[in-house]
């Protein structure tokens, strides 16, 4: 479905995206595009959505170059970043126009607008102008315009920005539902927790380079050389005695009622730790991985390339 072969993007002398190669297969599913601000996420999404042609290399969506290509554009939907909508227009009329620009007409257009509005929960407020809508409502309308024509590929650039927690959860549920129905979704964010809640498959970008690609677990496997911190709560002295005998130990810190250990290859030490605790070999009451989340993954990888 998506294929990049050493595709790069320059803004004059500035490199927005280094030559990047990856492929996403056909079929539904959600892929997260992660990276801090300025990592090149929007550049990549602009290449994929056909807004900009690559400065070098090749971008193929559904087997064709997407830039100003109606055959590709008819099959994808884009929700750009930000809160930008045309001034002075009513949402329902604007959606009708966007539907017509996607090749819909007549009853199919009416049905598509109604379904898109219903999907994003805006059916009863679509008569409002954009100026009279809250940010969350406008974001839903922006999503509706991308869903109108039933795209096979949906691209969302930082869609959770500015949404309240309830709206985020609603949007996540909607995206999961669309993915289950066969839509391939590419969603960018600089907040790792958002993506972690949504999908396991990620592309990690940093300074215009694709650092890693795969599931969180696969990427985590790349990090075995980095120590991971675990807090072992229980009788600290006994826990520390057990820990110093482990070959994976990199560092140890005592706390009042716990010991914090830094270990390499957590996948090796964790089963041993759990087994020993279960057999009563160590007085362990709780185990808290301090940095096994996506933020740690992200920081490790980006630190390596900084």
């Amino acid at each position, binding site marked *: 479905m998506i294929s990049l072969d050493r595709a790069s993007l320059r*803004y004059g002398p500035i490199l927005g995206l280094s030559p990047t190669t990856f492929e996403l297969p056909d079929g539904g599913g959600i892929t997260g595009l992660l990276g801090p601000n300025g990592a090149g996420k*929007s550049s990549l999404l*602009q290449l994929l*959505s*056909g*807004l*900009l*042609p690559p400065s070098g290399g090749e971008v193929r969506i559904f087997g064709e170059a997407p*830039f*100003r290509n*109606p*055959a590709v*554009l*008819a*099959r*994808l*939907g*884009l929700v*750009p*970043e*930000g809160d*930008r*909508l*045309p*001034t*002075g*227009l*009513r949402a329902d*009329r*604007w959606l*009708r*126009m*966007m539907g*017509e*620009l*996607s*090749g*819909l*007409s007549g009853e*199919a257009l009416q049905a598509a607008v109604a379904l898109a509005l219903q999907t994003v929960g805006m059916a009863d407020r679509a008569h409002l102008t954009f100026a009279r809508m809250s940010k969350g409502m406008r974001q839903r309308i*922006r999503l509706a*315009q991308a869903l109108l*024509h039933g795209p096979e590929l949906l691209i969302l*650039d930082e869609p959770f920005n500015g949404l309240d927690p309830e709206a985020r959860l609603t949007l996540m549920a909607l995206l999961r539902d669309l993915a289950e129905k066969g839509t391939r979704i590419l969603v960018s964010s600089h907040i790792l927790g958002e993506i972690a809640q949504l999908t396991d498959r990620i592309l990690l970008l940093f300074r215009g380079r694709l650092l890693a690609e795969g599931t969180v677990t696969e990427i985590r496997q790349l990090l075995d050389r980095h120590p991971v911190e675990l807090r072992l709560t229980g009788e600290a002295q006994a826990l520390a005695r057990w820990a110093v005998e482990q070959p994976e130990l990199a560092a140890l810190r005592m706390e009042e009622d716990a010991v914090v250990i830094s270990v390499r290859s957590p996948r090796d030490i964790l089963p041993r730790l759990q087994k020993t605790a279960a057999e009563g070999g160590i007085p362990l009451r709780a185990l808290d991985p301090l940095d096994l989340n996506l933020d740690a993954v992200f920081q490790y990888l980006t630190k390596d390339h900084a």
Partner: protein
Amino acid sequence: MNAAPTPLATLRATARGYAPRVLQGRGWVLAGLVLVPVALSLLIFTLIRLKGGEASSTEAVKVFHEVLVKMMLPIMALVAAPAGIREDLEQRTLPLLLVRPAPAWALPLGKGLPWFAWGALWLVVGVLGLQVLGGDPSLLPGRLVALVGAWWGELALMTLVGLLFKRGTLWGALYFFIWEPLVRIFPPALQRLTFTHHIESLAGSRAAEVGTSQLLAQEQVSTHPGLALLALLLFGAACWALAGWKLQRTPVGLAGSEGEG
């Protein structure tokens, strides 16, 4: 998968979609630019007549050429064109249109059509209002066609300039208010490169004849009204086409800046 819309469907969709914009503030400014000078003229002429004075029909010709043609029409183009496709570029809403399978080259004209229709409506009303002041009724169709034809060309020119240059309004203002008056001192053939010349040819009247006091002025040339109308329509069509070509070829990203000239 839906078939991509035809250029005609794209024009119809954008024109209808953006039509409500002309009924907002900028649209009423456009109407006011025509109606206020015409209404003021009518008021002044009515007061003169009430006081027993005689209002000459040549005054209507002066208001038409000096106020509507030379001032209000260019200002209308300078006001309306930025609300066309340029507005989407500046507000960064253009990507929402460009990711559609519709032909991008049709968007400038599609978005400009409501403004053209709205401006043309008020120009017709304005010219009809001026007719109340007096004047040869046989010249009325020529004046109507001249103003509407020039409006078509000037709006198209400003739309194109707005896509080509970041400060399109400035360049447009320089063209309308420097080049058009200044051309009278250049070789006569250059007069054909002004809207004023074609409007005067169509309307069958001039703001003023060249007098002996205008030492630098060149002889005024004439163009057949039919050719003048054709020139205005073709020039406008060429500008819309160039604006479409510019948009079709220029990558416009989410930041919008790539579209700048």
